């Protein structure tokens, strides 16, 4: 909760405290004693006159339906009313029960019963509000007409907020409107506007404001709420509820306030507005000012976004990295920023300390995105063992096709044919671009910067050299010492490699799973002979590369026999979702960055002529 930004809360509190005395006086229910007295005596004219008086005082009030039928007190109720006045409802109920045992046949008056019920309802509603149980408030308020509470502003605010939060805006509006029609207390009227600001869309609040009075000079009675109203209007812009921006004069006045006050919240709101409207210099200024005044931690996210969009990438990284613990969005932003940096088509030299931060964030977040980016960067830097280590982590955390592809080509480079084949067999039927590694009929010409003998982890990058004008070395840190060099198989590919039966589960875990002391009784021991060699159709996957000529897959789990025309993972988001909007059209191929790296570097695919066993 951004405590320092609670100026709305603060002004609300001040107003409520300021009008405390008036409120507590007015929180009484409508006094119908005289009305009922006249009715009991059958004095019709006096009843009507009193009813007119009450209706004038309380616009929401109407004549009780039981006015002519209500049961009168049977004897003295004074002690009971004293308990009622003292707010001791439990004591009152006990007293009623006791009197009924000592005076069989005795009943409390309708008036007392009604008032007790009303008081109970009020207490229930206020206690639900304290627990933010707005739906319960809506139900309670719906069950009984609240006309009798028309003069109880605090209760009315609470019920109105309940209605607003359970999606019954019209009813909320009518309560706020009625309060403005009825109340003559200036503070109560202002609180009504502030309460509405917290509960209703700004467009509704604007309608309430129109109900306000103006001086002869045209000054609104709510003019001292100007800053709060501007906040509401900015919020409406940020929520996309308001066309256009804020009136220039109004915005200028709010900016002056934000500059001169010591309050961080105003500047922070201006910063988000500027960022949304792509006024990046202004956004930077306001974020920095707000942060100097102790803004909410979330402002670090806005600041990092602003710096990034201004092209100040190093500063954006600094802000995001330093605030990654407090602001999860900045951990993610940091990872996404370096992911884009590491998976650029051309290899960019990155200082060791910066790379170390990437490593740190990736391991802290156990991020598949970060690990695959480091994998591709290591791969392009010809550090294939390191690349494999990172890809193994990425495959444990987020085994997308491009990540598995990265793992596969790293294995290929390291000549770990057995692992390479196991991987491809595991994902046969699911990842066509991975399986395509087996079906390149011509050997790729070279491995780009990494052609020639693999010098392991200290290879010179000619690309980097050309960029920097001198030879330089890229050293991607390894994630750990997990990697053990394995003896590379030099066997050529044949039907013993594909298709072969492999375990269908991905066994990779980082960190390694702790040993379980529970015995699982349902784990069926896998029978390698039962494992199919023909892949089945997977819903949403296109044809496997070998299907064109030789083999069709077996039917999918739902009987589907034909492949998808397009990969489901690349299909357009459903119309009407945020992802489908023009300002958020993100290709779902999130790790296509990996493919860029892969394509750019020209991996040497094995030449295979494969006969598939049936």
């Amino acid at each position, binding site marked *: 909760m*951004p405590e320092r930004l*609670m100026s*709305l*809360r603060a002004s609300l509190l001040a107003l409520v405290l300021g009008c405390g005395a008036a409120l507590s006086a007015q929180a009484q229910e409508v006094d119908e004693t005289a009305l009922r007295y006249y009715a009991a005596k059958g004095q019709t004219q006096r009843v009507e006159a009193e009813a007119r008086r009450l209706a004038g005082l309380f616009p929401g009030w109407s004549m009780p339906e039981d006015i002519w039928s209500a049961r009168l007190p049977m004897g003295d109720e004074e002690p009971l009313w004293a308990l009622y006045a003292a707010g001791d409802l439990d004591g009152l109920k006990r007293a009623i029960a006791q009197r009924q045992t000592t005076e069989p046949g005795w009943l409390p008056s309708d008036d007392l019963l009604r008032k007790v019920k009303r008081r109970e309802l009020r207490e229930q509603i206020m206690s639900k509000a304290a*627990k*933010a149980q707005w*739906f319960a408030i809506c139900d309670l308020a719906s069950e009984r007409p609240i006309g009798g509470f028309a003069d109880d502003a605090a209760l009315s605010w609470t019920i109105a907020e309940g209605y607003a*939060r359970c*999606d019954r805006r019209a009813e909320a509006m009518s309560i706020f409107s009625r309060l403005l029609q009825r109340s003559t207390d200036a503070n109560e009227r202002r609180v009504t506007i502030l309460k509405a600001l917290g509960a209703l869309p700004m467009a509704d609040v604007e309608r309430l404001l129109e109900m306000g009075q103006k001086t002869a000079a045209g000054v609104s009675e709510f003019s001292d709420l100007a800053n709060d109203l501007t906040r*509401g209007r900015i919020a409406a812009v*940020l*929520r*996309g509820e308001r066309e256009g921006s804020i009136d220039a004069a109004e915005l200028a006045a709010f900016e002056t306030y934000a500059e001169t006050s010591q309050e961080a*919240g105003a500047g922070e709101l201006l910063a*988000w507005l500027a960022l949304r409207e792509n006024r990046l210099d202004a956004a930077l200024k306001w974020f920095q000012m707000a942060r100097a005044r102790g803004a909410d931690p979330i402002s670090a996210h*806005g600041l990092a*976004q602003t710096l990034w*969009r201004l092209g100040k990438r190093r500063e954006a990284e600094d802000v995001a990295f330093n605030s990654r613990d407090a602001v*999860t969005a900045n*951990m*993610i932003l940091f990872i*996404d920023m370096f992911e*884009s940096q590491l998976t650029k088509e051309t290899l960019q030299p990155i200082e060791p300390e910066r790379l170390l931060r990437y490593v740190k964030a990736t391991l802290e977040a156990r*991020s598949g995105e970060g690990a695959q980016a480091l994998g591709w960067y290591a791969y392009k830097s010809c550090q294939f063992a390191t690349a494999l280590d990172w890809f193994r982590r990425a495959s*444990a955390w987020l*085994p997308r*096709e491009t990540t598995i592809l990265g793992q596969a080509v790293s294995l290929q480079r390291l000549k770990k044919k057995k692992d390479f084949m196991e991987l491809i067999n595991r*994902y*046969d*039927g*699911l990842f066509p671009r991975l399986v395509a590694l087996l079906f390149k009929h011509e050997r790729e010409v070279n491995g780009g910067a990494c052609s020639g003998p693999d010098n392991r982890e200290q290879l010179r990058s000619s690309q980097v050299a050309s960029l920097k004008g001198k030879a330089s070395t890229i050293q991607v840190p390894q994630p750990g010492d997990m990697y053990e060099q394995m003896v590379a198989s030099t066997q050529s590919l044949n039907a013993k490699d594909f*298709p072969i039966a492999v375990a*269908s*589960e991905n066994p*990779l*875990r980082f960190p390694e799973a*702790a040993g379980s002391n529970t015995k*699982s*009784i*349902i784990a069926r021991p896998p*029978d390698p002979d039962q494992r199919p*060699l023909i*892949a089945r159709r*997977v819903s949403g996957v296109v044809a496997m590369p070998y299907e064109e000529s030789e083999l069709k897959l077996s039917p999918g*789990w*739902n009987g589907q026999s034909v492949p998808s025309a397009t990969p489901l*993972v690349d299909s357009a988001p*459903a*119309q*009407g*979702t945020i*992802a489908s909007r023009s*300002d*958020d*059209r*993100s290709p779902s191929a*999130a*790790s*296509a960055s990996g493919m*860029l790296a892969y394509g750019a570097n020209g991996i040497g695919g094995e030449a295979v002529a494969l006969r598939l066993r049936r």
Partner: protein
Amino acid sequence: MTRYRFVAKQALGSLFAVAFAMLIMTSSVAAEPVGGDVALHGMLPQSDAWRAYKARFVTAQGRVVDTANGLVSHSEGQGYGMLLAVAADDRATFERIWGWTRANLFIRNDELAAWRWEPDKRPAVADVNNASDGDLLIAWALVEAAAAWPDPAYRVAARRMALDIGRKLVLFNTPMGSLLLPGASGFAAEDRADGPVLNLSYYVFPAFARLPLVAPEFDWNSLVTTGLRLIEAAQFGPAKLPSDWVTFKSGNPQPAAGFPAAFSYNAIRIPLYLAWAGFDQPRYHSSFLQVWGKRGARGFPLVDLAKGQASAWAEEASYEGIPALSACATKGASFPSQLRAPQALDHYYPATLQLLALIAVRMRYPSCLKD
């Protein structure tokens, strides 16, 4: 690619501004997000119940197995397992289930899980599509894990999932409110003649109260208000019950074509999620309680909605956890003692629902366990 990715991030940046504005604007009067007050952690303290569940349904690798259904696994089951592990304060098993889930189901190009996985198949993933309830359950479990055992990795994964749920699976601000598509593909208006088709049991109400902790930029509460309204509107046939799959193509919801028009194994979770989120008002539960009142010797009826009569029976005793939860929530009825421990022979699905109902009682209606 990189360029496009950042377009998305920028949009999310402005979404963040929305969240921020909402914080400022609402905190003056609101104490808490709706129902966001109760944490799951530690709500399943009976180690025996959890130990028995783990032994029967969770493999050593962390796969939650649907024992009645060819030993397959679902994203939903993984989510349930993760929730139960947090409730049981069993971080090692949580890690085991989450570790399997991400290593085997997160094969899409986004932050959602493939919904179906079958052992001994080539390949094991059966369908690349997601199931929105599975994603909601996993993301919610990650939120609860982050609350129970502070770890940036849980928060990051929860937020990434919540972002894609909010971006790709929800139609906000439609004339009918906020619609949760059952999957990223196949259910929208452009996908089906009777689309959008929804599954009201995918509205995991208690999750909507907790996801604002990691992704406050989305109006999760609008899914609550809409879900409640849709459930009240989807009362079909003489029994006035929702079907598992409902078309909302017109303003007048109907059982969706191509699915049995039945109140069945999906929809029985609706009262579970309602009560779990604190919606105990009788009007939400009355038609469910009424049909459960007609239980026979074989269990409680699954209803053919056209006829309003039983078409099958939920036979396993663990299913009784949900009627017992509804009765507890609406009438304060005691939660039967035999439902506080696992039934020895029941399968994964009823056994899971029973434990979830027990947790819901403990979280929301503990007085139903006081005898």
